[in-house]
């Protein structure tokens, strides 16, 4: 019997995996042990990286893709999908991550950019990519390059949700505005957003991105996660917020539960009790302009 022809690496399976993650929490992990804690807490996926953003901020230096050995250990240790970060524009790190069998690549501003003008051409890969965005134009440029999932950037490693809120509101309000425009206005709007015209037209018609929109950067509490969900995120990335807190397992579980029941204040109140210390936060105004991660990406 001849085998069925299987079409792999297509748009629908790439975007489709992100659809399956909706309503869930994706957690940053640096070791297989942390990955198990995240999975046990109910994470829908884990994000493998070398250091969590709060440590990157504290220690500085060039930040690269995690050690393949570590990534392979994490891939082995959990049943949920494993994501991993590559540097902006570093298509060879992306090739390595695809070769390691990760399920999603995050071309991330949290690592030190490898190219100051270009992102990875994500169409070249069978593995899907998620990219950060601070506004609609940036989101559509990334989708134009082949990203199959978008996350609002926020300001990673701060434990301060204010930038995540700003970016999510910016993306959603720009989409609402597009819906109210006439066809003849869309080209100049595409120019304003520096975004591909066809994608601008698609958003104007559907009122939403053609891919799943998660949120990231500064989410530290169950209420933060529920706030972002109520604003319109499809799901949540939590980085330093879990493993830089006093009791990671309990906090991780509470954030998962608040994300599921994001509209139920009684449940959010219940799961938020007695979680121990949240990570120490940073005010955005205290971070020098050149140290802000969200400005990376072109």
């Amino acid at each position: 019997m001849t085998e069925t022809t299987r079409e792999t690496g297509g748009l629908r399976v790439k975007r489709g995996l992100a659809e399956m993650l909706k309503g869930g929490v994706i957690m940053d992990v640096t070791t297989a042990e942390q990955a198990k804690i995240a999975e046990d807490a109910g994470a829908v996926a884990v994000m493998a990286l070398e250091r969590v953003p709060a440590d990157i901020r504290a220690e500085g230096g060039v930040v690269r893709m995690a050690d393949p050995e570590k990534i392979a250990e994490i891939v082995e240790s959990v049943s949920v999908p494993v994501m991993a970060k590559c540097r902006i524009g570093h298509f060879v790190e992306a090739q390595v991550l695809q070769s390691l069998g990760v399920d999603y690549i995050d071309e991330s501003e949290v690592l030190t950019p490898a190219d100051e003008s270009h992102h990875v051409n994500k169409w070249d890969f069978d593995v899907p990519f998620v990219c950060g965005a601070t506004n609609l134009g940036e989101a559509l440029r990334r989708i134009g390059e082949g990203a199959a999932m978008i996350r609002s950037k926020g300001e990673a490693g701060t434990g301060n949700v204010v930038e995540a809120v700003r970016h999510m509101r910016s993306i959603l309000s720009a989409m609402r505005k597009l819906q109210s425009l006439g066809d003849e206005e869309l080209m100049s709007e595409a120019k304003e957003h520096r975004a591909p015209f066809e994608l601008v037209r698609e958003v104007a018609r559907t009122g939403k991105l053609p891919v799943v929109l998660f949120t990231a950067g500064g989410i530290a509490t169950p209420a933060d996660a529920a706030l972002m969900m109520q604003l319109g995120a499809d799901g949540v990335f939590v980085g330093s917020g879990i493993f830089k807190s006093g009791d990671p397992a309990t906090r991780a579980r509470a954030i998962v539960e608040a994300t599921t029941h994001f509209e139920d204040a009684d449940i959010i109140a219940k799961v938020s009790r007695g979680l121990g210390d949240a990570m120490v936060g940073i005010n955005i105004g205290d971070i020098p302009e050149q140290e802000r991660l969200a400005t990376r990406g072109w």
Partner: protein
Amino acid sequence: MKVGVLGLQGDVREHCTALDGAGATPVVVKTADSLASVDALVMPGGESTTIGKLLDRFELLEPLRDRAESGMPLYGTCAGAILMSKEIAGPHDAPFRVPVLDVVTRRNAYGRQVDSFETDIAVRGLDEAFRAVFIRAPVFEDVGDAVEILASVDDRAVLVRQGRFLASTFHPEMTGDNRVHELFVSIVRGAL
């Protein structure tokens, strides 16, 4: 007819749209109260590990088992199909389930995400081929005598029915083709 979609995590919205297109009234189910109000339930695609844990934590496992065992039709896609399986073949288990369907299921059986695929399949009872999307999909390794195989890929069952229970390892909610949901709605109608 009210058909619930388990809304703890996963592609809930897509199932609601497909059910609406198939002539049912979709209801997102996150609590035991909302579960009690529906005539049938769809368990969507998502992460079976996560959905299983949330079923347990929010005390939905018992009410769901009770309803499924006392006549409520159930349809599971991918993660949902794993959660309906009587048995899970290793290495990855799914400890919290509603094990009403007499199948042995293996998770992530085709490999990792780069091995996710789509293909046309022939479904018993449908005239035209169905475009099936498999995302980190499980396989039904073995099916019991009471289980009818409605579609297969490379000799492995991908859509099965056991009385009022329906399960697919692929995602018919992702293609805009509502024929599998129409089949489920007709099962629900027959059970009312």
